[in-house]
């Protein structure tokens, strides 16, 4: 198998690196861009890239949900919100405090660095080459888990969605004078 | 007889609650309730004194009831939080002191006319707290009543004080609050070390002791104290904790700044209670907890205690010498006299400890008398500043005379209580710290200097014209003066009225500390 820097060049690996690149570049772009449309595209890129990662990991159902909810609904919602609340195309109207930004940046880099170091130090007790770990389609498994083991949280989520929905409507509606 | 001590606390509290239900306008009625609510406990205190058994060295008149329990507080055994009251030779004189000063302070503050109801409410709570703190036979009860005095005194200063009362009250609260916290840490720490030591030894089976090791009850601890030898390091550490608490509590150097502010800003009756009684609690606690239960700690740090005492004696005297305000002068004089008590405790002699208890009582009576006469003068002259007074012996012969007696008492004139106290105290301290004691006597010379100097400026000299028409003591003012002077002379002439009570207990403690 051909290798690059000691990593075997397989379809999965190539896919991972492409997706990772898309996610991280888009992620940075979301935070850095001035133009609204660029940001919207980048946001979609992150969410779609994550969906790709899910599918790569064999979680096709979760991937599809990710595309529908995040890449679809939330991105659109965010773009609408941005357009509604912004006069013009600029998203960056005020510069944050530079010192605080730099301190946060250093803090974040150190934080991520520690996590990565910890991760690299771990010998994972994992099944290394299980490309298809689940014998059944994941949808079946998820459905079974949801309706058996995770029935209670499933019902709680319905409460949560009701509360969020009612709350959002309650707060966002116009005054009835 | 145990219920007598409970009544000492209960009656003022009930009287305080009763005042809440009286109409604010009927001031005489409120004053009457307050007076009755303090006289009855005083009578009970006298009853307790009269029936005091001179043959036992331990606690008498024990009353104890469990308030609540904290489960699994130590090694799976519960801790019973109790209300326990008892007196021994050390607390009995101080309970009497509360009895005397509280009645006189209540009478004195008949003069207060603003928010009378609230005033006597807090004053009665303060008196209950003072009784409780001295009569407590349980470390929790002691802390409980100490906190009660804290809140009550805060309100008394902050509402009825002078111009800078808020500042003084807050300062009082924070300093005494910290002292209470350190004290609590010491008390609980003592109880825990005691419990672990008790668990390590097996004697718990032979003594009449609750099955649980951890206790805050002094009577229970006293019953096994002979069998429990705490490690020297523990004793030393705990002793320092108690010492720190007492230094803050008693306004010793370097924590001395709050007392003068407190006295300067408080009204006269409150000053009598603070200076006469409240300021004795700390040293009482040092003897009651640290000296009794931590003899090795005292051995290790006795010299430190004595040195700190001498520093406060001299510093207090020097600042008193420079004071321009009578109340600040008395405050620093009191710090100076309390330094003597520290010196006596450091000396670890039975006779010294006896002198220390005498000094607490004597200084309490004399300080109260001093504040009373100074306050009575200021009622007439509208000033406490020594420099503005002068020639008062002519318009106010009685008040000036009483003041002179109080000052002579503080100076240590033979025949008055101050002399007996200082004499016994020095007898003890010379035995162990001759050099330090000689230095301490300088403080006594300074006391004579600042008191007589201030007296001379106030009462003698040319009479200022604006003070010409002042009226001397009214009938009601004779009560505190006569009572206090009578007691000061009585103790001075017949020291045995206190000595018989104190002697046994002090001997027992001294035997334990091996002095």
């Amino acid at each position, binding site marked *: 198998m051909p290798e690059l820097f000691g990593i075997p060049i397989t379809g999965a690996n190539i896919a991972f690196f492409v997706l990772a690149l898309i996610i991280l570049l888009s992620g940075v772009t979301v935070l850095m861009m001035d133009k609204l449309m660029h940001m919207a595209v980048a946001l979609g890129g992150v969410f779609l890239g994550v969906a790709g990662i899910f599918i790569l990991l064999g979680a096709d159902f979760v991937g599809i949900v990710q595309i529908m909810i995040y890449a679809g*609904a939330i991105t659109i919602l965010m773009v609408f919100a941005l357009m509604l*609340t912004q006069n013009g195309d600029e998203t960056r109207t005020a510069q944050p405090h530079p010192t605080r930004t730099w301190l946060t940046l250093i803090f974040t880099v150190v934080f991520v660095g520690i996590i990565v170091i910890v991760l690299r130090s771990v010998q994972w007790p994992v099944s290394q080459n299980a490309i298809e770990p689940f014998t059944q389609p994941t949808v079946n498994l998820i459905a079974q888990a949801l309706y058996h083991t995770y029935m209670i949280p499933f019902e709680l989520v319905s409460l949560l969605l009701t509360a*969020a929905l009612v709350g959002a409507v309650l707060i966002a509606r116009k005054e009835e004078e | 007889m145990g219920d007598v001590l409970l009544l000492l606390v209960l009656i003022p509290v009930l009287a305080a609650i009763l005042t809440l239900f009286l109409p604010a306008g009927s001031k005489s009625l409120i004053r009457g309730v307050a007076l009755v609510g303090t006289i009855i406990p005083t009578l009970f205190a006298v009853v307790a004194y009269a029936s005091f058994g001179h043959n036992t060295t331990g606690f008498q008149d024990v009353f104890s009831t469990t308030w609540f329990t904290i489960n699994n507080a130590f090694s799976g055994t519960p801790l019973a939080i109790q209300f326990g009251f008892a007196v021994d030779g050390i607390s009995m004189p101080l309970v009497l002191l509360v009895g005397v000063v509280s009645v006189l302070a209540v009478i004195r503050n008949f003069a207060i006319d603003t928010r009378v109801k609230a005033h006597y409410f807090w004053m009665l709570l303060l008196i209950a707290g003072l009784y409780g703190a001295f009569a407590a036979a349980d470390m929790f009860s002691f802390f409980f009543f100490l906190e009660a005095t804290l809140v009550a005194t805060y309100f008394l200063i902050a509402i009825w004080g002078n111009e800078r009362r808020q500042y003084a009250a807050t300062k009082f609260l924070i300093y005494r609050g910290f002292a209470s916290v350190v004290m609590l840490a010491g008390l609980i720490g003592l109880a825990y070390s005691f419990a672990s030591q008790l668990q390590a030894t097996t004697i718990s089976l032979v003594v009449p002791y609750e099955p649980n090791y951890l206790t805050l009850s002094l009577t229970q601890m006293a019953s096994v104290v002979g069998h429990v030898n705490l490690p020297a390091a523990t004793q030393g550490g705990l002793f320092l904790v108690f010492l720190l608490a007492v230094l803050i509590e008693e306004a010793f150097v370097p924590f001395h700044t709050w007392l003068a502010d407190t006295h300067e800003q408080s009204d006269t009756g409150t000053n009598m209670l603070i200076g006469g009684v409240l300021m004795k609690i700390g040293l009482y606690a040092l003897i009651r907890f640290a000296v009794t239960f931590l003899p090795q700690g005292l051995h290790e740090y006795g010299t430190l205690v004595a040195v700190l005492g001498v520093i406060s004696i001299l510093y207090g005297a020097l600042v008193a010498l420079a004071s321009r305000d009578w109340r600040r002068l008395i405050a620093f004089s009191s710090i100076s006299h309390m330094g003597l008590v520290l010196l006596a405790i450091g000396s670890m002699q039975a006779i010294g400890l006896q002198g220390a208890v005498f000094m607490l009582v004597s200084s309490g009576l004399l300080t109260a008398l001093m504040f009373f006469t100074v306050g009575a003068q200021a009622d007439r002259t509208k000033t406490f500043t020594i420099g503005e007074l002068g020639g008062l012996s002519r318009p106010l012969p009685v008040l000036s005379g009483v003041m002179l007696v109080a000052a002579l008492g503080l100076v240590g004139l033979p025949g008055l209580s101050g002399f007996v106290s200082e004499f016994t105290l020095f007898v003890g301290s010379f035995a162990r710290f001759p050099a330090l004691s000689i230095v301490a006597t300088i403080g006594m010379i300074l006391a004579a200097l600042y008191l007589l100097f201030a007296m001379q400026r106030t009462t003698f000299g040319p009479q200022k014209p604006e003070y010409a028409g002042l009226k001397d003591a009214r009938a009601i003012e004779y009560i505190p003066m006569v009572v206090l002077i009578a007691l000061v002379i009585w103790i001075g002439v017949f020291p045995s009225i206190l000595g018989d009570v104190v002697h046994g207990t002090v001997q027992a403690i001294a035997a334990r500390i091996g002095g």
Partner: protein
Amino acid sequence: MALQPFLTLAAILFGIGLFGALTKRNIIIVLISLELMLNAANINLVAFSHFLQTPNIAGQVFSLFTIVIGAAEVAVGLAILLAFFRAKNSADVKDVNLMKW
């Protein structure tokens, strides 16, 4: 394929999200950053679900819950923002400074 690259990717994405959430002044971008953090956690969950010694679907289920909750969070966030926008006529975090941060 191995587990570590996925976890590393997630860690970096979490970091980007955290940085955005803590520094950005535009509240909508802050909300987006929060979603990035949730996405990072989801990558972790799904990756673990896949690579565990005994693969467990629970990770995927967990990530589904997270996605749904994230959407609810965004909805509430935008609703509050809308209310705030009505009151202040701005969607910029620099106006969210009536009180000291």
